[in-house]
């Protein structure tokens, strides 16, 4: 269980409150107007933003003082998910060891992960030599290798075309099903939510609401969401 207990997350003068629970293995979309605090919520779970009050727990363990890289969390950002000076295999390999001193067995695992996302023969390339979709796949291969319990997505596929984005979301859903990860995905597109999320966390007016079933919420939106959806 991912539990946000009476949290207030500060980001400069702006703050977001959250008091909610998320069941392990579920897939959630975080939606709401821009500037409402979706990214703030996600970054607090990832450990980039300090809590002004409350605490965040995963399976009963308090994460509040755990450094971002030590949390059971993998995260994909809006952009810049790959290091341009490292090869595809090195970028993925960071998911196993940050210092990239990989054993032969680990290198094999990296290769398998790249094959899993369909990039088996591009391991030696640099990101600049890849298409946008291929770059996303490298980042996903790394997520697979990280094998963390929680996967946070901050609109990493926003720059891709609609078809490619759908393809990536399906791949995320597949990978999450394989690893059993809990997925939280920031999106401003209700279609994304319908595509892979069974539940939705609505963030509006400085408050993150407890998860609700996707179809129910989108078909019958409360006022705050209705204003946003139009």
């Amino acid at each position, binding site marked *: 269980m991912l539990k946000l207990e009476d949290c207030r997350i500060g980001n400069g003068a702006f703050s977001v409150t959250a008091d909610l629970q998320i069941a392990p293995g579920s897939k959630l979309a975080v939606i709401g107007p821009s500037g409402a605090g979706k990214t703030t919520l996600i970054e607090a779970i990832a450990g980039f933003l300090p809590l*002004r009050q409350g605490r965040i727990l995963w399976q009963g363990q308090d994460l509040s003082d755990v450094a971002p890289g030590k949390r059971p969390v993998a995260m994909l950002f809006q952009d810049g998910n790959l290091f341009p000076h490292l090869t595809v295999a090195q970028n993925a390999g960071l998911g196993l060891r940050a210092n990239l001193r990989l054993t032969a067995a680990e290198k094999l695992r990296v290769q398998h992960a790249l094959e899993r996302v369909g990039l088996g023969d591009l391991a030696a390339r640099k990101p600049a030599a890849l298409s946008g979709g291929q770059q996303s796949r490298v980042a996903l291969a790394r997520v697979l290798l990280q094998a963390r319990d929680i996967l946070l997505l901050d609109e990493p596929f926003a720059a891709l075309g609609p078809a490619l984005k759908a393809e990536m979301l399906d791949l995320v859903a597949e990978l999450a099903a394989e690893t059993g990860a809990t997925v939280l995905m920031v999106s401003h597109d209700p279609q994304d939510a319908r595509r892979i999320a069974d539940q939705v966390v609505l963030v509006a007016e400085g408050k993150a609401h407890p998860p609700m079933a996707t179809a129910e919420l989108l078909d019958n939106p409360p006022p705050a969401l209705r204003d946003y959806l139009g």
Partner: protein
Amino acid sequence: MARRAQPVSALPGAGAALLVAALILGTLAAVALRAESARGFGASDWAALRFTLTQALLSAGLSVGLAIGLARALARRRFVGRSALIALLGAPFILPVIVAILGLLAVFGRAGWVSQILMFFGLEPLQIYGLHGVALAHVFFNLPLATRLILQGWQEIPAERFRLAAQLGAGPRAMWQLLEAPMLKRVVPGALAVVFAICLSSFAVALTLGGGPRATTLELAIYQAFRFDFDLGRAALLSGLQLVLTGLAAFVALRVSAGDGAGAGLDRVVRRWDGGTALARGLDGLWITLAALFLLLPLAAVVAAGISGLLELKASVWMAALTSVLVALLSTVILLLLALPMAAVVALGRSALIEVAGILGLAASPLVIGTGLFIVIYPIADPFALALPVTALVNAVMALPFALRILVPQAREILGRYGKLSMSLDLTGRAFVLRVFLPRMRAQIGFAAGLGAALSMGDLGVIALFADPEVATLPLQIYRLMGAYRMEAAAGAALLLLVLSMGVFWIFDRGGRWHAEA
């Protein structure tokens, strides 16, 4: 509020800044303690202060005045070699002072090219030593810098304004009032202050072209008090005065200066519709030609005079060259060890104080630090035995402000762009530095190292203070050859120094960008 997590620690940078501050302020304190025992100012000290201010004012006025015309001509003309000329304007920064002086002597000296032409017509040869010689050398170094600063101002006038002015049918006078005068009012004070501050701490120029009671700068007076009279109290007193002066000037320069002249896009031509008359074209052409000749002829003279001497260089010159290369490399290593952690901390946005420590290097004068170090070292060890490491250290501190200007923007970019990703991957500390920070800083590290190495290679400052007759860097060796009137050998060694300085800069800068990924 809890602190935000960061992928690198601020500690090493804070330590480096502390070291720099301790070096600059500690030597200052050592000097100040010593200065109390001095007898107060004598007539020659006041003369040194007067001359320092006079030559700096004259140099700043001339450099900036000429730069206005040159920048204007460069801003509105296109011609073959324009970008090459603008690139050349950046070269004096890494040109060893002693090399430029030999070049200037070959052109403007008593037996130089200009004097020979004058004598051919039965006129008196030029007299280069004294105030006007010092000013001439300072203009040679600072005209390019001032031109770059002012050219930047010209380029920053939006193209739309020129279009609008042309549309309104503005003549040269109206154009001046509408666009150029307001821009110059904004840019010129900064350029004046920067050049003035640089000329205040002139040592090598005054050492070679000045001298005597009527043409001694404070820095030179410190050197003489130290070297000839071994009067530490007087050296300390002069050092204190020099420090107050440069500190004030650096403060003013930083307050009023708009840009640093290193901005990209200086070779862009502003499209203009004025200045099409034959007279305007002719005047602009004259400016550009004269400036190019003024900058290129001394360099050409060094090459021409040096080539024959290069083949007959003595072993002592090669020894000095080797020493210089080693000092430059050591200085570059120290520079990077100080600058990289400091750049990381500044990029973290942690502390403006760290930046202040870097800027202190601008206000501090090498001879003051040198004097202070001597006072500190003297009771515990033989300062002359430490001449080379001390030179490398002081050179590194003097290059630090420039290195920080190069490194900080990219460090900011790296931490902004890859900081969170790295932390989410637990890629922090040593692994972050080795895998992300250094690889992505490569081009900037190369550039900064090149500048640092070239500046150290050409430096003729602390080494003159500390060196005993057995030890010499190449610039000092050249100075000694000049002092012995062995001009041919000096010219050969100067060409060698020119090649080495430009060479180390090129190798480092090129190495940083070699196979660098986007």
